[in-house]
């Protein structure tokens, strides 16, 4: 009875409407087993091929990472880290970066444009480019620094978890391609079970801190990692240790956004929000804490 291909929308940016709840839902997840990854970048190719995107041909900057960062035309990429353990043993840590499809998506909360970001019943967080206004708040709202605005059409892009494939019962292109099964796809439940087996195997091979990365700060994710060093996610090219949505976004999401929209003073509010979210560096710590305090008070 569970339909994980469901595209019923459960959350929609800048909207108050209630989604249908009658149909049962099953969440899907992609499990990225870093310990099985050989960094071949087949996932990068499969993603570009399936989604008909081709980034520019860049240059070598002295590392294997190419392209060097996510972009409107690079929705996933391998990040390589040469990590030396205290004993001197070298590890080549390779992490596939891309949208984590958070259960509590910061991008969606931050988005001021109605219906530009949606979350389906199966857990996929999708951008609806037609509704995107290119403001970039999704970037600020994302604790993983994933969405990118296209210079061509000024719209935000990121991994869709191949919602078009999942909708017809297929795995995302990257998961299908992955030669070593480092990317698995299935129900979230099955992926957690798979991760458990892998963690046992890794522990038997001496990785005492092997574990699953499914951070609760964002309500868990629909893209999870098996890490050999789950106690130190940051060594995998700065995977956040305890990701959470900026308090500012929660403040905005908590109701202020609705007021703003209704008043049609949208542009002005937008400007205000741009000011408060355009880079944490610009916001003094004290102000941020104050806002967080306010936000907390507001939502209570």
């Amino acid at each position, binding site marked *: 009875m569970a339909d994980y291909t469901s595209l019923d929308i459960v959350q929609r940016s800048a909207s108050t409407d209630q989604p249908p709840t009658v149909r049962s839902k099953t969440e899907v997840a992609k499990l990225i087993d870093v310990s*099985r990854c050989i960094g*071949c970048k087949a996932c990068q190719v499969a993603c570009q091929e399936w989604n008909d995107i081709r980034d520019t041909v860049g240059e070598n900057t002295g590392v294997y990472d190419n392209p060097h960062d996510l972009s409107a035309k690079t929705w996933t990429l391998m990040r390589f880290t040469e990590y030396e353990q205290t004993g001197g043993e070298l590890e*080549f840590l390779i992490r596939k970066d891309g949208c984590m499809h958070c259960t509590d998506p910061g991008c969606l909360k931050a988005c001021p444009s109605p219906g530009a970001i949606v979350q389906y019943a199966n857990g996929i967080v999708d951008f609806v480019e037609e509704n995107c206004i290119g403001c970039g708040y999704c970037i600020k709202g994302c604790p993983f620094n994933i969405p990118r605005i296209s210079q061509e059409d000024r719209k935000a892009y990121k991994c869709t978890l191949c919602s078009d494939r999942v909708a017809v019962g297929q795995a995302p292109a990257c998961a299908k391609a992955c030669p*070593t099964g480092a990317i698995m796809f299935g129900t979230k439940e099955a992926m957690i079970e798979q991760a458990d087996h892998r963690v046992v195997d890794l522990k038997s091979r001496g990785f005492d801190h092997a574990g699953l990365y499914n951070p609760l700060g964002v309500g868990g994710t629909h893209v999870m990692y098996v890490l050999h060093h789950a106690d130190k996610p940051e060594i995998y090219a700065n995977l956040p240790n305890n990701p959470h949505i900026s308090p500012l976004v929660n403040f905005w999401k908590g109701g202020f956004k609705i007021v703003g929209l209704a008043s049609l003073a949208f542009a002005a509010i937008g400007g205000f929000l741009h000011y408060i979210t355009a880079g944490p560096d610009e916001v003094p710590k004290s102000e941020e804490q104050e806002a967080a305090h306010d936000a907390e008070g507001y939502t209570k």
Partner: protein
Amino acid sequence: MTNHWADIKHADVIVVMGGNSAEAHPCGFKWVIEAKVKNNAKLVVIDPRFTRTASVADIYCPIRPGTDIAFLNAVTKYLLDHDKLQHEYVNAYTNCGFIVKEGFGFQDGLFTGYDEEKRDYDKATWEYEIGPDGYAVVDPTLQHPRCVMQLLKQHVAQYTPELVERICGSPKEKFLQICELIATTSVPDRTMSSLYALGWTHHSKGSQNIRAMTIVQMLLGNIGMLGGGMNALRGHSNIQGLTDLGLMSNLLPGYMTLPQEREVTLADYMSTKRFKPLRPGQTSYWQNYGKFFVSFQKAFYGKAATKENDWAYDYLPKLDVLAYDVLRAFEMAQDGKISGYVIQGFNPLMSFPNRAKMTEAFSKMKFIVVMDPLQTETARFWQDHGEYNAVDPKAIQTEVFELPTTCFAEDEGSLSNSSRWLQWHWAAQEAPAEARSDIDIMASLHLRIKALYEKEGGAFPDPILNVNWPYEIEDAPRPDELAREINGYTLADIKDASGAVIPAGKQVDGFAQLTDDGTTACGCWVYSGCFTEKGNQMARRDNTDPGDRGIAPNWAWAWPSNRRILYNRASCDPQGKPWAERKKLMEWNGSRWVGFDVPDYGPTVAPDKNVGPFIMNPEGVARLFVRGLMRDGPFPAHYEPFESPQANLTAPKIRGNPASRIFKRDLAQLGEPKDYPYAATSYRLTEHFHFWTKHARVNAILQPEFFVEISEQLAAEKGVSRGDWVRVWSPRGSIKAKAVVTKRIKPLMCDGKAVHVVGIPHHFGFTGSTKPGFGPNSLTPVVGDANIETPEFKAWLVNLERTTPPAVPVA
């Protein structure tokens, strides 16, 4: 591969040495991961660089390029010293007890019979002692001082862990850890799979690198076993097929050989082919050579090949040298002795060693013809591309043709993979613009040349005029017509082994039905069975896998005889029982060999007949000592690369492999460590395939620009930061590249001295979507393996400095 891709999942230990399978064969490598996850296998990677294969290894050990034999002979010594052999297997299935002729020896790095002038051996003593009964003499107690086992022990005695450390730079404790792990597979129910590729072949002693591991695998009883074997991971999609079909200077299809000048008549030729058994009752399958040869000549020359004219033996060219391999060919071309080259799907300007020599050679030719679906550098060797191809077109008088061909997406036919599977494929679109298939182009050329000979006459036109051309559309033979001819068919009514008549004009079932009286035709005997009266066996798509052995016997078709694991008789003990239930592949059921695979053996030959499992060998057993069959020795010995940072510690006077051929000009261009202190090695990157994917935009995005890899220590010494431009040079050329500074390459401590390794990837050039760059062949020496002339691309010397970016190429 003796085994096949999915079989790797059964391995308990996997050693990747002389290859980088995760990067070069990711989808085959999945079976390594499967073995780790499902079979609790341990993965060992031994490589000068910490590769992406190493990133998922249980043990990684560094090694200096070109020192694999020292390492592997030391593993052999470890197994012998610690008595970690599968004794019953070794005693029954190898030549360990065979007595070698008096006078055989090894001293100062040389085997008996060396001729320094000729760089060759007189191999008279590299043979078994033959008894009065005409058979090789064997001492089953293995005590005779000249038995193979004793000679092997003696040969590897000097290869201690300490010597490994001094030669290879591999830490002793890592080496011993690996030996212990490898030794665990000496028990009957554990196997090790050896995965290798060009990392072993691209050396002046490439064949012996492989031999060294083969000896280890035989001592452990891992050949013919599920999850075992020597697994050559071939580079290209059909290079197995082209080799099987004999597209080499000295081969006929199916590993038969082209005649040498001394083989004046067919009788002379045949006298050295039908190997007489060296032990009583052995199969020695090459005794059937005549059937394969005559059937081939009938397929090729049809009615013109008759018993009276020795099956048109004189239509075949005879060689005056071992082979006109490419190193020899371009040496001749440099002297203006080659008029032209017809190049099909190949980019020799970037692929053969010493690019400057290649450019000079091509410039001296009258014409070249390049048939390719992509715009190659070779077809543009005469174009000025600034620093990337600095030539003056006006000074080059070579006429060049570039003929557009179809690619896989537009053609139909079969490819033979590393597992020896022949898989049929179909076209999905029409050829772009005016591109034509290689078949049509070759057929058209043949017909036009034939027409010229018919009109004008000329040098010995007979084979051209009489070649068998039974194709419905003469200038466009169909793939299925050719496949049928390769399989073979009857020309007259014949009787099969059971006495049943097979009428004329039928496809044969396999090579067992071939005859030597001209009643059958067969293009390539090892492929016989691929297209029978039952239809195209290569197009089969039933992936059912009985017993979860990974064999899927009804998927496509494997040569020989749809056999998936070679020497599989050795998976059972001499009595015909599997060595272990979990490694069960087949067994003797009292009247037949039955199991998951097609037996590599007479299907009804009972175990008590004592027929050895290695039926192609006249001994019936595998060879730890390979007699005179290899040019550079019956046992592998450590030789340094021709350019090495270290003298040969086992024989200081010997440079390189003493039996390797090297031409004078190339010898004069070898560098010395005082001028070129760094050990260079070349390799593939997972993002690219050869020189092809730089033409595919998406792959160009993944790895857009040529680079070299160096350690942090060398970078610090040279003042190089990550992403800087560096110049790398050898006596043969100079290139510029971005520097990837990495912890994955470390200086190796060899005999007390730090050796820096410079890694140079293959893949970049001056055509395609990637940024312009160079190939390692601008720097590599022209010297090949002593047996098959594979160039020494994996170990040579360079120097390196920080530099400025190359000049922008001329548009």
